[in-house]
């Protein structure tokens, strides 16, 4: 086994250990847990229609509560389009 493969095996073993522990530490599905009670979920579910008037809570979060995230997404799309057009500019004529 070469040195590169050995490093890869070590790395994936560490990643697998982290994944297994993460899966074991997940919240139980469908149970109410007092310790890590998701306040932000409850706030958004309760107040979305009052504050934004939108029925679709996901769109209200994406475009109103977390507008900067959408701005970043739009910037990523703009950069991708600009890169592709610059890359293929030479081939078209």
């Amino acid at each position, binding site marked *: 086994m070469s040195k590169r493969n050995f490093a890869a095996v070590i790395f994936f073993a560490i990643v697998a250990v982290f994944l297994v522990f993460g899966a074991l530490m997940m919240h139980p599905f469908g149970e109410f847990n007092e310790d890590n009670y998701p306040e932000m979920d409850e706030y958004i579910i309760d107040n979305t*229609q009052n504050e*934004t008037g939108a029925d679709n809570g996901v769109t209200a979060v994406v*475009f109103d509560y977390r507008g900067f995230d959408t701005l970043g997404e739009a910037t990523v799309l703009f950069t991708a*389009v600009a890169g*592709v057009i610059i890359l293929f500019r030479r081939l078209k004529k």
Partner: protein
Amino acid sequence: MSGMSRIVKTVTNVAFPIVMIYGLYVIAHGHLTPGGGFQGGAVVASGLAMLLVAYGSVWTMGKIKEKQLSVLESIGAFGFIGLAFLGILMVYLYSGLQGNFFNNFLINQDIFPIFNELGRGFGNINTAGVIPLMNFAVGLKVIAGLFAIVLVMAYATRLKGVKQK
């Protein structure tokens, strides 16, 4: 020469308006039903890519240039950022308070009420303030951006054996 067979073109002619209407519906009802600007824009761009596959890139490039698509995408981006900056300006003009970037300044006005006759933000398309306008801007941006990517890549690879430098 360009494009696929007549069967594919006929099926595309039938399916293309339906795909367009569905995508624009998803964009316009982004604040009421599942979906939004990104998703509806992806649907419309998929319909345009179907047109591109059926009719060939040379025909499609004769109809619409990628420079026009760049202009459309820039209009969408400026509309989005402009609506975000208007949140600062309009709140200051209305109330003298300090507004925020991405403030939903249309939400308590007459044209975008929170409460209408059906209930709280229920079913009517003129709810949710600035969110539908941002949906339109992002939808325009996604349509133009994704179709520009597909169109430029298809047009650049139209010739077999392009000479490499």
